[in-house]
């Protein structure tokens, strides 16, 4: 009986761990598989109509960028993409699931990175939200 209970517990643990792992790697919108025109348009849609994308797992490739906001005393990290003419650029802010030390553990400005995380709307004090990829993993 005790053995059976142990095996059952092990099975439940294994299933829940694999489910968690699959959630972490699950991607709703994979921008890395789209053409540059589509990527730019998708990011534009996410920025202008963010409510539609809240909670979706996003994977995107772009250039690393960082910005220190003196008002909030907070450093923002972003994944920047350019349009087909390379005259317009836009991007999404991201927050790593496991924070790293800046700048030593981050790539240099403009380096190519891949971000995988959950799209969220972070509310500011004035009530206006801005889109950000949270709980993110960063790959170079």
């Amino acid at each position, binding site marked *: 009986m005790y053995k059976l209970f142990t095996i059952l517990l092990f099975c439940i643990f294994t299933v829940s761990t694999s489910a968690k792992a699959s959630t972490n790697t699950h991607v709703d919108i994979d921008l890395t598989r*789209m*053409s*540059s*025109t*589509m990527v*730019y*348009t*998708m990011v*534009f*849609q996410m920025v*202008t109509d963010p409510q539609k994308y809240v909670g979706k797992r996003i994977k995107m490739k772009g250039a690393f960028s960082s910005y220190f906001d003196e008002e909030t005393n907070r450093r923002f990290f972003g994944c920047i993409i350019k*349009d*087909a*003419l390379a*005259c*317009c*650029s836009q991007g999404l802010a991201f927050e790593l699931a496991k924070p790293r030390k800046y700048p030593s553990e981050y790539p240099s400005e403009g380096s190519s990175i891949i971000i995988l995380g959950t799209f969220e709307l972070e509310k500011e004090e004035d009530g206006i939200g801005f889109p950000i990829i949270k709980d993110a993993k960063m790959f170079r």
Partner: protein
Amino acid sequence: MLDKLFFYLDFPFVRYAIIVGTLISLCSSLLGVTLVLKRYSYIGDGLSHVAFGALAIAAVLKVSNNMLIILPVTIAVAILLLCGSKDSRACVKIRGDAAIAMVSAGALAMGYLLMNIFSSSANVAGDVCTTLFGSMSILTLKPTDVYLCMILSATVLVIFILFYHKIFAITFDENFARATGVNVSAFNLLIAIIIAVIIVLAMNLVGALLVSALIVFPSLSAMRIFKSFFSVTIAAAVISVICSLTGILVAILAGTPVGSTIVAADILVFFISYITSFIRNGRM
């Protein structure tokens, strides 16, 4: 390739781009034949620069619906250029091509100047670039933009079909049309308004600098192959729609700028029709 295309077609903004692209290219080609035959090919370029200038004014004034400024300004200038240049008294000393060149360069320069001085955007160069070359605008349309485009395009099509015979008469011989009782001035005014509407709409598709290509290329391609006004008009419409659809789909799949890809498709079809005409007739 097809899997990717069907995957992209699932996104509403891609479907909007295809609908609007088809409508704009259809309307622009219909009036394009008239403009080319009346030797007003360059007016599309001039008016699109005016629309760009009006867009800059709308941006400076922070008008939420910029069509409220762009459309009336472009229509007013179209009437001045198309109707005024016909009447020497109306356009005192500056006529025809000089007036178009003056308005075209002036509006472009003033638009860029205004955007640089007063724009609140962090990326002025990007805003100007995308307006002039239409790299993405067609893929960033909202449903309201699509409905407005559908209404305006339907209006243009209905007017063209209803007054087809009058437009035909004015295109070839205004004096003859006047002699047969056609109110030439009123129809020139109508054509000017329609052209302004088409140009404002077409700016979304190919950008301000490439609008004239959308008007001129399909008509010229059709004229290489067909000879009657009716067949040229139909062929220009078919060529224009096919080129726009091809351009939009190639741009989406290959990641190229939408406006220039559409114009590249138009140029390709022009060369094909040119060679076809050369082989068939043995002359240029």
